[in-house]
């Protein structure tokens, strides 16, 4: 009798505790099965669609996100540099290369919850492809960090983790075939103040 109660209580505790904790962890931190890596960047092309996996769906519902539709564009996120070191707001980075074909793209800095960072007054929150200065071969170099730099510069102040978001609008990349062989610019760390 006592043994049966013991089994039931332990089993229930493991089931409820373990199930709830693992579900909470998966919904908040698990990338889902639909994540697509392109160099230092990751995109979630199925987010918000009927084909999204249950984890991605649960997260979209919890965050109340309004993900871009496939005809609108696609967002790529980077949390680490080329060597795998996490991006930090106190550091200076250089983005170099080219973007996949798109009508235009934008680049902005965000915190680790993907809330856009607001730089000090007078500085732009984001850069876009129509204002970026390019080199002769069409590629570009963008400096990211607290110190002003000549050429393309995205100001980022403060401290803490940093995420970079590059959004491509009106792009064939969102199609089913488009994501193979997509190359995005590489992110390298120049220096760190801290």
């Amino acid at each position, binding site marked *: 009798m006592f043994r049966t109660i013991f089994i039931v209580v332990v089993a229930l505790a493991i*089931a409820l505790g*373990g199930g709830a904790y693992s579900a909470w962890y998966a919904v908040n931190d698990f990338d889902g099965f639909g994540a697509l890596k392109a160099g230092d960047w990751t995109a979630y092309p199925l987010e918000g669609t009927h084909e999204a996996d249950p984890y991605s*769906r649960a997260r979209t519902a919890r965050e109340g996100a309004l993900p871009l539709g496939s005809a609108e564009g696609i967002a790529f996120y980077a949390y680490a540099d080329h060597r795998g070191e996490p991006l930090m707001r106190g550091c200076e980075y250089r983005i170099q290369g080219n973007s996949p074909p798109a009508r235009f793209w934008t680049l902005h800095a965000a915190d680790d919850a993907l809330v856009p960072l607001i730089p000090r007054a007078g500085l732009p929150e984001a850069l876009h492809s129509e204002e970026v200065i390019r080199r002769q071969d069409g590629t570009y170099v963008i400096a990211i960090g607290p110190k002003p730099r000549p050429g393309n510069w995205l100001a980022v102040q403060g401290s803490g983790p940093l995420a970079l978001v590059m959004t491509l609008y009106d792009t064939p990349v969102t199609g089913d075939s488009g994501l193979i062989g997509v190359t995005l610019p590489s992110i390298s760390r120049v220096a760190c103040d801290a």
Partner: protein
Amino acid sequence: MRSFLWALGLGLVGAGLVHIVIVLLVPVYADHNSWARVTALGAENQFHLLDQAGPADQRRETDPLLLRAACPFDLDNGPVRVFATGSVPFWSLSVFGRNGENVYSLNDRSSVDRRLDLVLAQPLQRIELEKSSVAQKTDSIVAELDIHKGFVVVRAFVPDESWRPIVTSFLHDAACAVTEP
């Protein structure tokens, strides 16, 4: 010892079931989902600007260079015509169902003269629309959607600050009213 292993095994199987049930139920019970957010902005069949300067959790995953407006609708009241005048550098839109699922998307390149003129209709309403003369007179794109309640989100690009008032009035004046077949 054996009974403890029994309990452990049962518990793990149960944990798996609880995990699956919670993950599947989150979208049903999430109270801060996109539908709740959009309907909190105001009445149906009107566009409401989503504030760029709102609290942090409303600004997450937004692009600072794009302004957004959302309009909740109910297709059971009739087909909805989404319409805007004015010329902006880029606009795109997505239609979401009540459950926050993206069911349709479009950008200005896919529409006639880059104008925003779209009719959302259920399958039966679409047949009615095609029989009527209204559809033949206008260049509206007709999107057939098998949903009841839902919302449209229109995004428009602000390349620099001089465009902001133009893009804001484009979104502010956009209409999303029920149209008679």
